[in-house]
């Protein structure tokens, strides 16, 4: 007797919904076992990890702050990956967006009225899009693999940013420390009340809504899906795969750039060498967890946000190390991807033939 995976004739609708729930369930069980083995009360540990981050208002605020850039970048990448365009360099585009957008408050610090914010956001998106245009050009002109070029350009962007922040854009009153002047007035994004939720969260929601409509209701969305799943069919339908590469990279680059300037003008308030804790890379996971669907990305972004916050809470409340928190994140991702198998496959029990 053995278990086999058998391919389903078509995607299982039931499993599409059930698989994430199953994954969360399995994670909870595994987590409970791990926590008990560590000598912790599993109920309390799971409470701290998953529930506490969403029970307090300030913590919810932090969750939104953490999830906003992930979602903003993630939706762009979801479209990209749908079309089989592999932009791995969102982190670099984010950095460039942050640099472009920061030019105004740093070089023209007195300009603090409302238009500066609009211009900063526009420049941020432009910076990200321009930077993503490099791999787009290389791919369409020379057939260079965009996975490599976009990834390598991340490090270039970070070094350029580093040079600016340690060099010409350094705060003159800052004892040579690598940090720009503090932004002021409308150079900072407006926040919800006195809290930490900034305009970036709103932009993320708008991006989700717009891309959802584009992907499900418009010809462009159809084009993305066709070119992604069947490039030859796309060619016959008159869709240009080159134009698709440009569209995807400019879109995802622009959104990543927007996320970058939102980080700097939002929670940061100044430019410093560590612009993002790897949002551009984490967003790749978010895009896939969200099944490359804009609404799914929103959910996935929030979920990943919870796992970060929960990991931190667990460090403080339970005294477990940062490593345990990371293991926990890994387990969650593992189960989600594993359970996705059930969408395309079913498990069958094979009985040996009795002769």
């Amino acid at each position: 007797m053995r278990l086999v995976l058998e391919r389903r004739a078509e995607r299982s609708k039931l499993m599409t919904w059930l698989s994430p729930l199953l994954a969360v369930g399995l994670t909870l069980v595994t987590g409970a076992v791990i926590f008990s083995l560590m000598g912790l009360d599993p109920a309390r540990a799971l409470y701290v990890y998953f529930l506490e981050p969403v029970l307090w208002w300030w913590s919810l605020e932090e969750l939104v702050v953490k999830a906003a850039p992930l979602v903003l970048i993630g939706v762009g990448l979801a479209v990209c990956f749908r079309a089989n365009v592999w932009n791995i360099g969102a982190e670099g585009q984010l950095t460039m967006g942050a640099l472009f957008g920061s030019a105004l408050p740093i070089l023209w610090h007195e300009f603090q009225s409302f238009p500066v914010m609009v211009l900063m956001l526009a420049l941020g998106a432009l910076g990200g899009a321009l930077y993503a245009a490099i791999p787009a050009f290389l791919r369409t002109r020379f057939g260079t693999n965009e996975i490599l070029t976009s990834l390598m350009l991340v490090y270039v962007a970070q070094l350029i940013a580093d040079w600016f922040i340690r060099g010409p854009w350094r705060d003159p009153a800052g004892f040579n420390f690598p940090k720009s002047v503090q932004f002021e007035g409308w150079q900072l994004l407006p926040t919800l009340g006195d809290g930490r939720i900034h305009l970036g969260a709103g932009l993320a929601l708008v991006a989700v809504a717009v891309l959802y409509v584009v992907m499900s209701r418009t010809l462009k969305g159809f084009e993305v899906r066709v070119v992604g799943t069947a490039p030859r069919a796309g060619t016959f339908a008159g869709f240009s795969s080159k134009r698709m590469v440009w569209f995807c990279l400019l879109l995802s680059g622009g959104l990543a750039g927007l996320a970058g300037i939102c980080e700097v003008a939002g929670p940061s308030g100044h430019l410093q060498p560590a612009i993002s804790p790897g949002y551009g890379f984490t967003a790749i996971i978010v895009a896939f967890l969200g099944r490359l669907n804009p609404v799914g990305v929103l959910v996935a972004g929030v979920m990943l946000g919870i796992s970060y916050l929960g990991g931190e809470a667990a460090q403080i409340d339970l005294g477990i190390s940062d490593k345990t928190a990371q293991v926990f994140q890994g387990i969650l991702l593992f189960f989600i991807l594993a359970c996705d198998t059930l969408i395309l496959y079913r498990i069958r029990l094979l009985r040996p033939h009795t002769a």
Partner: protein
Amino acid sequence: MRTLFKLAVTAAMLAAGAFAATPASAADPLKVGFIYVGPIGDHGWSYQHDQGRLAIEKEFGDKVETVYVEKVAEGPDAERAITRLARQGAGLIFTTSFGFMEQTLAVAKKFPEIKFEHATGYKQADNVATYSARFYEGRYVIGQIAARMSKSGVAGYVASFPIPEVVRGINAFLLGAQSINPDFKLMVVWVNSWFDPGKEADAAKVLIGQGADIITQHTDSTAPLQIAEEQGVTGFGQASDMIKFAPKAQLTAIIDDWSAYYIERTKAVLDGTWTSGDVWGGMGAEMVVMADYTNMPDDVKAMAEETEAKITSGEFHPFTGPIYKQDGTLAVEEGKVLDDGTLLGMNWYVQGIDDSLPQ
């Protein structure tokens, strides 16, 4: 749908309120929070701060309770981590990396009753004090040892970021070395990270390959010293005594000892006498401690001990003139000492360093 949403929000608010109402009573222990930039297991910078945390626990027993968050990224994430400590009732919070400066100030503004201590920063507030250690005092001593122990007359320096603290250390090291051998050479490799064992190890290999037979570092992992051990050259431990990792290679180590300061500040909060300020302590304040002098002849050891004693007593200052900048201009004339302001903002090399400072 709408009423359902309203209900949910109300319920959430109520729940939040119920959990939020946990005022600290007088009998509660003082909660002391720590934010570390690296993992405790770096056996360097963050490890030493954690030793300070443990010292507080040992000193005050059940009068205090300590909590920490490790590997906090410098940036918006730090503000959240600090806020969390503040929300969860910490009365005193140590944020132990320069990159937490603005975040510490931002959180401190929202929680005026909580005391904050920010390491290596330069901005204070009514409830934010800053502190740092004069590590350069130790660098001068190891520079002298390096000049005595090196056969090639060349040392390699694995450096993190070109901020004043690191530049100051490089300068102090070379000034120490030049006091023994005026022709001593120093090569510097910037790895642009505080903690990246792979990069640090590569940098050490490159430096040894180019002729350095002494490796010193201003990064937090044990990797450079382990490479020195492997390749049969010698070096110095950073932040923490790393002799376990390099029993044959470590000559000594500059240990950051935060225990005394942390205990003093915790006591001040317990007594209600805490005030903001800026402390920059060195060997005299026992913030900078030298590990045992090992793997060296007795006369070198005697020399190192003598310099250490002179610096500890305040008889000698490593940045005593004449000191020339790399471009040949005089930074401080004979017999004078560089002032703290210049030291804190140091962004120039002294003469004799085989590197141009990244600007």
